[in-house]
Each structure stands twice: as C-alpha cells, then as structure tokens.
C-alpha cells in the first residue's frame, strides 16, 4: 500500500483529490483559496493600522493559516515517507529546452542549482526568488485569487471573472517562459 501510493500520482487521481479538498474545506466552513493567507499575514503583522485593506479580523481567517501549516507538514511527510526516490518523469522536449538555457535537469521536483540560498548572491536569484515572489503576492491580490481560488473554486462555480483571471495567469506564464526566460537565463 505504502509502496503503491509512494509512486507519483496520475493526473486522474490527483485532480479529483484536489476537488475533494475544495469540498472538505467548504464542508469545514472555509473555502479553497490559498493566496488569502498572504493578506492574513499582512493583517496579523499590524498592517491594518495604516492600511484599510488589511483592517479586518484576521482571527476569522486563522483556519486558512492552519490549512497551510498542514500543507507544509503534508509536503514534509510526502518527501520523507511517501518517496519512491525515482527521478521525475519529465518529457524529453522540456529537458532539451531547459538544457539549451543552461539548466540541467536533476530529477528533483525543482532544480536544486536554482532553488538554494547561494543563488541569492546572483542577480538571477533576486529575479526568480524576490521578484517572482513579489509578483505572486501582488498579482494574486489584485486578481482576487490564485490557482485555487480562481482556476478551481471560481471556474467550478462558472464565474466569468475567474475565466478572465485564468487567461491572465496563462498570458503571464507564457510571456515569461517564451520571451523573458531567454533574457534571464
């Protein structure tokens, strides 16, 4: 059993489980939207005293903070106890494309040559880590949600605004991957 679930999960298993998480969160009294936690952290740090947008009762959002703490634990648990130690089955075309940009495929979930603390000694590191994080925080709040809030929760509720947001997500992702990556790497 453990060996079985330690293999990578197929998309047709993973997708329904993600939908189940949305259902469980609604059942528990919350909703599925992870980027809201970033706003909660601003409010918890006292940003509400100066800025109205953060002036709300962050205690009412504590459940979502508990949820993301669970997400950290779930990640830790998976990598330590549900790990078959096989390299990621990335498509050869992607491996070749990344190679051309000078990024070696190392078989892990993320390239360890990029996602380590030493990268902060380079301009590339600041672009990926700091600018990348900033764009996630700024963009999701402006759009009022991220992949969970718009692509899953919003589209599941057939919301046109969520469709526009998801089109934006892909516009930004494609622009970065195909036009800006060659300038950064």
């Amino acid at each position: 059993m453990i060996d079985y679930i330690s293999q990578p999960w197929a998309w047709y298993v993973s997708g329904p489980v993600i939908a189940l998480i949305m259902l469980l969160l609604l059942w528990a009294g919350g909703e599925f939207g992870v980027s809201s936690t970033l706003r909660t952290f601003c409010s918890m740090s006292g940003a509400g005293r100066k800025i109205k947008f953060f002036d709300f009762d962050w205690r009412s959002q504590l459940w979502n903070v508990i949820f993301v703490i669970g997400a950290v634990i779930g990640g830790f648990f998976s990598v330590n106890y549900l790990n078959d130690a096989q390299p990621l089955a990335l498509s050869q075309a992607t491996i070749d494309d990344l190679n051309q940009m000078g990024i070696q495929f190392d078989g892990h979930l993320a390239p360890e040559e990029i996602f380590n603390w030493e990268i902060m000694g380079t301009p590339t590191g600041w672009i990926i880590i700091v600018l990348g994080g900033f764009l996630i925080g700024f963009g999701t709040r402006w759009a009022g949600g991220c992949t969970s809030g718009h692509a899953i929760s919003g589209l599941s509720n057939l919301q046109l605004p969520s469709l526009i947001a998801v089109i934006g997500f892909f516009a930004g992702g494609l622009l970065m991957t195909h036009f800006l990556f060659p300038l950064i790497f």
Partner: protein
Amino acid sequence: MKFLRYLFIGILFGVVMTKSEAISWYRIQEMFRFQSFHMYGIIGSALACGVLITQWIKRYKINNAQGSQIVINDKTKGWMRYFFGGTLFGLGWALTGACPGPLYVLVGNGFSIFLLVIASAIVGTFVYGLLRDYLPH
C-alpha cells in the same frame, strides 16, 4: 477540534500537491511549453469534479459541518483586475514554478529558499494594499 480538521485537510493537500508533482518547477515549465498533458489533466479533472461538486452543493443546499448552508459567493464583476492582476501572477508563477499553495508545500519538501519567496509574496500583497486605490479594478 475545528482547527484539527483544517490541519488534516492541509496535510492531504500537501501530499497530493507533492505526489502529483504539481509543485514542480519542471512540471510548470513543461506545462507552459505544452510538452505534456500532465498538468492540464490535473487542472482539468479537478475542474470537472469541482463543477459537479459545486452544482450539487448549490442545487441541494448542502450544509457544512456547523449545520448552516454552504454559501459560495459570486466573484465581483469587471475584467481589469482579473486580467492585469492575473497576468502579473502568471509571470511570477512561471518564474518560481509555484502558485501560493505549492509555496508552502515546497517548504515542507525541504526547499527552504521558498520561505524567502513567501516573504516576498507577503511584501507584494502589502504593496498591493498600499496602491489599491490607484489601480484599475
């Protein structure tokens, strides 16, 4: 007790995001290069199930664990905030290979540098709060 529920749902989320490899920077690159069906399959099947679940909840007025009816709010109308905000997030999604959920899961996976990505994302959200009144929505 109430919080324990969220903790367990969060753990399940961390497991599925890791085992599905949806938190993988490589998988996100593969997706934006249209070189595999994997990520589209995950999002597509989650969405198919999600539509059924949401319609079921709305049609049959399903209650939550507290016994009150589950309310799923509509998003406010408009397009500018969704398109421009969405595009900025998409740039960050491709750069870091992560959306907000995976940021947390990746920290659990041992990529501690993502703590700095989360900190930057909190700053980004803060700056949005500062500039909110000057941005089109």
